[in-house]
């Protein structure tokens, strides 16, 4: 065990996997000589050389094609999008190629590729740089969708992603890169997909979240504990595959649920969670499932407006109170 930042944990995961398997390589904009836009790949070019740490032009379609085609030919690429907003440019390669090739070939072609990079909002980057679209990817069959909330998961889930034989959408949260935490240094340590983690146990209400949403829920849970409300906080870790069993078991116990995410709320992952919880635990629910999400507007630049657009722990607290009212 060692204490390290989320960002370092990601680097460690990539480094260990590249040492373990010569077929793993990293490509993306500024991942090499520039040492990574967010320093995630710092030092990796020096360590692995230009064939395995590949600087690309600003060509997201090309990056996605490079990774997908290489995966179809037996390598295990990790493609970094400088931010997930730019993956919009590569949507055809991602959705019509990476996600479908295995199915279209009747399983004869495998596509072991990880698409990763920062998402998340909060530093006034305005509308074009403030979207993650995990709801889109979760909607699309053929992707596994992973969003770590803690350094240890960042490492363990990324290693699992690299070893997975399918296209994995791996979304990091730029606002969590600096988060410190205990991380296993065991190169065999991995975190399985499809297993949610209960970050806090409670009896009064279930809070379901992922990525930065988990931190909002934990903060809200603390506040509410002072008022005698005990929240159970579930970190989904992966949206596909989705661990509904852990969620439903908890809801059957607490009879209330709030689902929280940073992304736009309309037609989003919390909508799916709400639908599934109602479907799976209708008779156990004392109140409708509450959803917390970002304001359904393009992200404004002004600090006060941006703050108003991003969900906070207070929004979770308010949702809990509505649910328990």
């Amino acid at each position, binding site marked *: 065990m060692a204490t390290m930042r989320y960002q370092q944990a990601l680097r460690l995961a990539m480094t260990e996997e590249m040492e373990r398997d010569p077929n793993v390589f990293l490509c993306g904009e500024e991942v090499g000589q520039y040492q990574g836009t967010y320093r995630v790949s710092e030092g990796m070019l020096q360590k692995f050389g230009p064939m395995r740490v590949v600087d690309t*032009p600003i060509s997201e379609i090309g990056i996605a094609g490079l990774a997908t*085609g290489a995966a179809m030919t037996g390598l295990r690429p990790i493609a970094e999008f400088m931010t997930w907003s730019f993956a919009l440019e590569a949507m055809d390669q991602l959705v*019509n190629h990476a996600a479908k090739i295995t199915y279209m070939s009747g399983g004869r072609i495998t596509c072991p590729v990880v698409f990763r990079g920062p998402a998340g909002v909060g530093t006034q980057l305005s509308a074009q740089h403030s979207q993650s679209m995990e709801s889109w990817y979760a909607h699309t069959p053929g992707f596994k969708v992973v969003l770590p909330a803690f350094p240890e998961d960042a490492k363990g889930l990324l290693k699992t992603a690299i070893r997975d034989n399918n296209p994995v959408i791996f979304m990091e949260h730029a606002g969590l890169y600096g988060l410190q935490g205990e991380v296993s240094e065991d190169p065999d340590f991995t975190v399985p997909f499809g297993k949610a983690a209960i970050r806090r146990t409670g009896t009064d209400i279930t809070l379901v979240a992922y990525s930065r949403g988990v931190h909002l829920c934990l903060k809200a849970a603390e506040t509410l504990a002072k008022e005698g409300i005990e929240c159970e906080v579930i970190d989904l870790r992966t949206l596909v595959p989705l661990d509904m069993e852990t969620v439903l078991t908890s809801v059957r116990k607490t009879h209330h649920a709030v689902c929280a995410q940073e992304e736009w709320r309309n037609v989003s992952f919390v909508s799916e969670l709400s639908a599934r919880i109602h479907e799976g635990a209708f008779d156990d629910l004392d109140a409708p499932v509450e959803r917390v999400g970002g304001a359904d507007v393009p992200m404004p630049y002004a600090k006060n407006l941006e703050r108003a657009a991003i969900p906070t722990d207070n929004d979770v607290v308010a949702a809990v109170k509505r649910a328990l009212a």
Partner: protein
Amino acid sequence: MANTTVERPAGDEFQSSELTDIYRLMLLIRRLEESVYRKFHEAKIGGYLHRYDGMEALVVGIIPQLRLPGDKVLCTYRDHAHALACGTSAKAIMAELMGRATGCALGKGGSMHLTDPDRGFLGGDGIVGGPVPISLGVGYALKYKGEGNICVCYFGDGAMNQGGVHEAFNMVGLYKLPVLYVLENNQYAMGTSVERSTGQPDFVLKAKAHGIEGEKVDGMDYFTVRDTVKRAIARIRETGEAYFLEMDCYRFVGHGIGDDNTKAWMTYRNEEEVNEWRQRDPLLRMRDTLEAKGLITPDEAERLDKEVREEVEEAVAFAEASPEPPLDSLYENVFS
């Protein structure tokens, strides 16, 4: 006559037996497309269907020169010929087109998504320009593995207007990857002629603008294609750098099964034009050459044709006798 080498055409060091094999492959491609067309109209085949009639030289002049499965082939939805040339059986193709469990993609891909990775065929692609970004990754992997293999990537004249093609060309030029690009310039993208779709019709220049050398070739003649490609492949294996070939050709039939060359769809070309190009039918030209050179007699040619028609009929019978994919396979292969 095996082992007697043919003098003409110049630079030809192939065996006559190989040339008859090539001719037989061309015949097989043509007859399969004709049969597929009938089966579609018997409602035995669904979806979109794009025939290769008239473009056979682009496939038989290239793919037999590859070292499959080490070398890789990518192409468009107009992919039946490519699969056959890579060695996928007519049975596996016909079964795929009829959506059977015995199809080369278990019935899940269909006409636009034939695939046979064990033979180096990484498949057709329903997205115009789609194979080109993929070829960048395939080429990168081949260079990475360093086994001297190359990737051949086919795409259409209309695909030249896809941004992803330019992103990929630039990166292939930058990284110097072993890819042979074959532009199947059949003069039209659906109903849009090249002149109506590009601001500058010299496709070779478009490749050069990204650092990929290339040339334009008569794609209606097997020998021209074969000899040009032979040089191109040698160059790629030697330098490791990509090469671009614009192959001038023509599709004798409509764009897809929906565009049937009937009057209603003749909005973009006329019968005269089609007939002119049919004069240059690569299949007939090949047969004439072989007969002229005494490499094949008219009887042998007829026998070959009969043989090929039987092979296609067997494929049809095989496909029709094959089961549909089991319903529970619906949820299989979403993930590996």
